[in-house]
């Protein structure tokens, strides 16, 4: 990895971590565990669409590890990892399928995968099958928040990318 690439990915990580920090200061919108806005995914989606799945994975892992150390609640890192990695896998599949178009659609499927991943971990941690009751709520909220973060990533791609084009040329 070149110094330039490393710096760029570090900048993306900082951005994602800042968004994550701001978001965790917002009180929960609905009293259902697992429902959150997921704005940090804007950065993952952006890196995925502008660079590669591997770069997005680096940024994602760095963000989750740093967030875990900075604001960690121990087990929350496990939820983030399961959700984040499943989300990235699905999103990179969707990007290949959609040939890098339709970012909001990619983002919605990513959000769905993220919530399913978290629900699976919750089921394992709680050793309870009842968490399945949360599935419809989590799916519906993923569609709304996924659409929103996808639109944000689309805007970033359209309005900011042209100004930082020289940064992504590797």
């Amino acid at each position: 990895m070149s110094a330039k690439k490393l710096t760029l990915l570090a900048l993306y990580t900082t951005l994602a971590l800042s968004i994550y920090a701001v978001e965790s200061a917002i009180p929960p919108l609905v009293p259902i565990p697992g429902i959150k806005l997921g704005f940090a995914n804007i950065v993952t989606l952006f890196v995925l669409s502008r660079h590669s799945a591997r770069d997005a994975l680096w940024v994602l892992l760095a963000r989750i590890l740093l967030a875990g150390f900075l604001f960690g609640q121990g087990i929350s890192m496990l939820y983030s990892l399961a959700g984040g990695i499943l989300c990235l896998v699905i999103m990179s599949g969707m990007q290949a399928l959609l040939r890098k178009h339709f970012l909001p659609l990619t983002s919605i499927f990513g959000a769905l995968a993220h919530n399913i991943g978290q629900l699976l971990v919750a089921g394992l941690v709680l050793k309870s099958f009842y968490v399945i009751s949360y599935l419809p709520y989590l799916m519906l909220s993923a569609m709304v928040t996924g659409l929103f973060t996808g639109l944000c990533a689309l805007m970033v791609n359209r309005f900011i990318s042209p100004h930082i084009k020289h940064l992504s040329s590797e």
Partner: protein
Amino acid sequence: MNNSSFPKKTALALTGLLLLLAAGCILWLILAKGPSDHCIAQIYQDGVLLESIDLSRVEAPYEFTVSGKGGASNTLRVTKDSIGIISANCPDRICVHQGFIRTPLLPITCLPNHLVIQLVPRDTVGPDATTY
């Protein structure tokens, strides 16, 4: 942009799939059992059933505290036909914000303290599982 690089059909199919999924979720929530007069509250910690309370037989409201590993502590309040967590030492307190539940639709979950409170209609639980 030509059609081969702009997979419109795939996108349409995926959007359709999403709409179906959304409809399915809404249907699930509608069809799920609504308010029930005779619910049993089951309190699980780490997958172990700690207590089972017949909410329709609660005469006077009462409170008790469930303690778990690592100093986890949740205080529950039980009233006739409803149950809720009124205080907890978890970081987010989502369980407290959820308030009182009286239907089997959504269990109260405290993820940090590994606690689940699930209501089940009485007719699906055998009499042996109930403490009066």
